[in-house]
């Protein structure tokens, strides 16, 4: 909602109140000021009267005008088509500085001297709402030749973020009403003047039937030629309203000023009907009351004007239920438009200033009264501050609540009819609080009973935080992405997609047209993006929700690594190694601790032979693999390794300690000749199945190609509750070797 200071002053006396104070007051009482702009016409731009104009001798498109600027007459060359003798126009005299630092100087245009400039709206810093030069008229006030134009046109624009519950504030009048409460100043009583015709409206307008019982209507008729007014066009431009024609501009103007729904039409036969619950005003076109206006006006000099109102809840509900198309009328009606129809009607007729037929057609319904019992103590408890009864009563009166009676306990108040948002005591508390001033309310700590409010959610958040912290410590950047992805590409890369009947109905963009079922594709996008920005070490992680095809939500954590395994430095002579499988495995284990890898059967974007299941506490928790080169090519990236872990599969159990063995550890290595298709896991199982107590750990330390077989060196760590003797060690190693030999694995 945009208002201007001058327009506000039509309704409320603001003399001696600075605009800053107005803005502060509006903010304080809950009318958020979202923008402010001062319109100030440059000095030395004055009202001039065009005395005569003739064509420039040397230029077809220019005119040479004589302009009276009060104390002198100036010869001015003007290029505008619409300039004509008799006009009052803004004249920038020499010495004026127009926007864009355009200094007006004495000049010669094609040989003819010009002592100033006749200005267009845009040229003196106004919105560009007119063709050609700006022609001034008395709608701005009595114009004095030679007077500074700013006296008539300077203004201040205040843009407000009126909240959806305050339909009564979608007008200049409504804001003035708020200010009157906020500043404790009275509203002005407006006087309306228009010529009344002897003939009554009943002779020329027929309302054939009235079935529109849900809405109120007040209809009047007038006739004559509608003349444009600069004030109307200018103010509509300042508040950003557009109109279709002259009559529409008056309608828009009066609606913006008063908040009353107004619809203009031509004189003739009208109908008020109700189709399927929707009230309709038919008059050479249709106006769905409070929903949408499709009446086109013919400029035939014979007009009707209909001021109307419909219950905001009713109209909102019917539009929702019938899924109707709406326009600005619905915006106003659904939030509660101004109920004083006569006020809006008179304001309109006063501005348009044409003869009006006598009488009116009044088809209005009474709006039910709302009475609320206000208990002071309850108000005090809601606010948490002892506001006295007198203040409460004063505030409510200022807001035009009617005090019905005051008893010991309660104040009985009648809600003003324009406040469709007020329904209960908490609404009243809000009114009291905002006018009283929140800043006057002392903040007060709440006393409460302490309780154990820790829960699983908090533990999980802590756990996630820990995982992220570890990941970051080992070099990953955390990234966050939308839970959306592109359905077609998920499908193309072989991921599940959310079932069609559970999918998004109204996605915002094609590339975000479904819920993601993996975190990985977005991370691959990131690799491409960061590579393009010249990054050589790209290690990224993210935690987020993913979905399965039944749209169940899972929390997952994903990792990708690409590029160099280290930064370029003197030690690696500027040639660090590239990331590889082990690089990511080590990082993952730094985040998740003791994990094991097993061969994975299939993953849609994994290299088929570098693809592992991650096992933790005996359970598969996710995947770790090299990105399939074909997929890498699709993303236009090089070797990349990824992991995706299902956080819900992780145990958060406490680890239990065993006594520390104080005797020394013994290390022995065995180099074995093994089949190439044999996994280390198989050898591990064979040795592990022996159940040797003293064997505390064993792990592969070297592997190399012997041609048809591989040489694999395993390191064994032995320890017991005593110092192991050489013969005991040999026995154990013998036992291991013997078992391996039984399985065809020989010592090299």
């Amino acid at each position: 909602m945009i208002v201007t200071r001058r327009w506000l002053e039509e309704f409320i006396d603001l003399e001696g109140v600075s605009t800053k104070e107005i803005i502060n007051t509006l903010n304080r009482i809950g009318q958020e000021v979202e923008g402010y702009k001062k319109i100030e016409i440059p000095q030395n731009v004055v009202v001039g009267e065009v005395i005569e104009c003739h064509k420039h001798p040397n230029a077809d498109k220019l005119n040479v005008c004589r302009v009276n600027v009060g104390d002198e007459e100036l010869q001015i060359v003007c290029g505008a088509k619409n300039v004509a003798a008799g006009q009052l126009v803004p004249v920038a005299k020499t010495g004026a500085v127009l926007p864009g630092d355009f200094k007006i100087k004495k000049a010669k245009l094609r040989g003819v001297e010009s002592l100033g400039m006749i200005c267009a709206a845009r040229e003196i810093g106004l919105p560009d709402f007119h063709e050609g030069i700006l022609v001034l008229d008395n709608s701005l006030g009595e114009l004095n030749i030679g007077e500074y134009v700013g006296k008539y046109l300077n203004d201040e624009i205040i843009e407000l973020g009126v909240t959806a519950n305050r339909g009564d504030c979608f007008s200049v009048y409504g804001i003035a009403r708020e200010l009157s409460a906020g500043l404790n100043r009275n509203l002005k009583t407006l006087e309306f003047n228009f010529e009344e015709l002897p003939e009554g409206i009943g002779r020329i307008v027929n309302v054939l039937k009235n079935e529109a019982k849900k809405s109120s209507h007040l209809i009047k008729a007038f006739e004559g030629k509608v003349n444009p007014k600069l004030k109307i066009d200018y103010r509509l431009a300042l508040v950003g309203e557009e109109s279709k024609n002259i009559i529409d501009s008056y309608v828009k103007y009066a609606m913006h000023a008063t908040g009353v729904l107004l619809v203009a039409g031509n004189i003739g036969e009208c109908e008020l009907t109700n189709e399927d619950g929707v009230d309709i005003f038919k008059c050479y076109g249709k106006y769905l009351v409070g929903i949408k206006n499709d009446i086109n006006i013919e400029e035939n000099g014979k007009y009707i004007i209909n001021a109307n109102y419909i219950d905001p809840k009713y109209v909102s509900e019917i539009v929702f239920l019938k899924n109707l198309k709406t326009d600005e009328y619905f915006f106003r009606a659904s939030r509660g438009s101004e109920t004083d129809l006569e006020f809006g009607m008179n304001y309109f007729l006063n501005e348009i200033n044409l003869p009006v037929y006598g009488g009116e057609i009044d088809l209005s319904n009474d709006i039910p009264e709302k009475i609320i019992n206000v208990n002071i103590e309850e108000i005090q408890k809601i606010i948490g501050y002892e506001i006295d009864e007198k203040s409460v009563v004063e505030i409510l009166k200022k807001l035009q609540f009617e005090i019905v009676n005051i008893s010991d306990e309660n104040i009985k108040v009648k809600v003003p009819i324009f406040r469709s948002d007020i329904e209960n005591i908490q609404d009243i508390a809000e009114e009291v609080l905002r006018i009283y001033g929140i800043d006057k309310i002392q903040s007060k700590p709440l006393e409460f009973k302490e309780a154990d409010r820790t829960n699983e959610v908090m533990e999980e958040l802590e756990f996630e935080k820990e995982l992220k912290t570890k990941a970051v410590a080992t070099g990953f950047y955390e990234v966050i992405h939308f839970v959306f992805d592109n359905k077609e590409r998920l499908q193309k890369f072989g991921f599940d997609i959310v079932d069609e009947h559970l999918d998004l109905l109204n996605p915002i963009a094609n590339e975000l047209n479904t819920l993601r079922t993996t975190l990985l594709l977005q991370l691959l996008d990131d690799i491409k993006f960061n590579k393009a920005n010249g990054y050589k070490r790209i290690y990224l992680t993210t935690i987020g929700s993913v979905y399965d095809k039944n749209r169940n939500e899972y929390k997952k954590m994903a990792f990708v690594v690409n590029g160099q395994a280290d930064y370029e430095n003197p030690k690696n002579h500027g040639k660090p190694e590239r990331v590889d499988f082990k690089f990511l495995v080590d990082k993952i284990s730094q985040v998740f601790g003791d994990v094991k890898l097993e061969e994975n059967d299939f993953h849609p974007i994994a290299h088929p032979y570098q693809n592992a299941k991650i096992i933790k506490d005996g359970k598969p928790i996710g995947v770790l693999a090299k990105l399939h080169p074909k997929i890498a090519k699709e993303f236009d990236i090089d070797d990349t390794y990824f992991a995706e872990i299902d956080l819900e599969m992780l145990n958060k159990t406490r680890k239990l300690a065993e006594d520390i063995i104080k005797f020394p550890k013994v290390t022995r290595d065995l180099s074995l000749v093994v089949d190439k298709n044999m996994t280390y896991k198989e050898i591990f199982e064979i040795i592990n199945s022996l159940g040797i107590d003293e064997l505390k750990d064993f792990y592969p330390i070297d592997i190399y190609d012997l041609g048809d077989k591989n040489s694999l060196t395993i390191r064994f760590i032995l320890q017991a509750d005593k110092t192991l003797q050489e013969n005991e060690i040999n026995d154990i190693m013998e036992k291991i070797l013997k078992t391996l030999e039984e399985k065809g694995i020989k010592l090299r």
Partner: protein
Amino acid sequence: MDLSEIKNAISLDELEKIRIKLLGRNGIITQKFKELKNLAPEEKKKVAKELNELKEKVTNLIAQKKAELEEKLLEEKLKSEKIDVTLFNPKPTGAIHPITDTMNKIIDFFTKLNFSVEEGPLVEDDFHNFEALNLPKYHPARDMQDTFYFKDGSLLRTHTSPVQIRTMLKQKPPIRMISPGAVFRRDYDLTHTPMFHQVEGLVVDEKGKVSFANLKFILEAFLVHMFGDVKVRFRPSFFPFTEPSAEVDISCIFCKGEGCRVCSHTGWLEVLGCGVVDPNVFKAVGYDDVSGYAFGLGVERFAMLLNRINDLRSMYEGDIRLMEQFK
């Protein structure tokens, strides 16, 4: 005897040679001790005393010189090991996302004040997201929240408030909770992303106990905790689920309230919405005779202010150019 050669020795080897020359088995001083036997008793006693003194002096001088030379040798060795430490400036990678970091700070504040943390699903239904929050289907305030819908009528939650409803339905008052998480609106431009994050707070207790003044207290404390020395301003506003409602501003942290581009020359930055819970919300969850307050904030907004991030969308682009600044 000339002992200056001890002082002048330049290596441990040379010093050892001098030691042998003087104190070795056939050394000069050793020889003199051997010659003692040829002296008369009176003379012998005197010379022996002198010799002992000399021996002690020489031994000390050698030990002293040895320590000196050893120290010098170590110094030389260390010197030869000198590295240019300035060559080893590391280039670390890795940083927590500013949204996560900010969210953690917010959660920490409230959990330390005995709030619980609650969560709910991202895919919600109309009841929890709207209806129970005093937003009937046709309510114009629904326009404020352009919603993502699914084909089965579910929706992506437009705020974290449905978690309030779920928690109230699951638990009994008193309630003291926050709910952090992702929320969704169908809006994508310079200043809007279709997904963003909120933290919501709710306190419910007996009727007449929880007031607007209590809400003011906790939010003032919270905002000073987050932003440091700022002024806090409450402006009356409207939310369907609270009444009275307010928007909360802090004095602009960039211009200290003077007015700048970031605060649109108002001197204030809007950071929170809050209010006393509307009775219709309690009615929807079947609570009688209770009072409560609620508040909600956008985590991105906080993160942008706290970390001076200008472009909202850059936080969702996995952009290392942004992230590496938070190492």
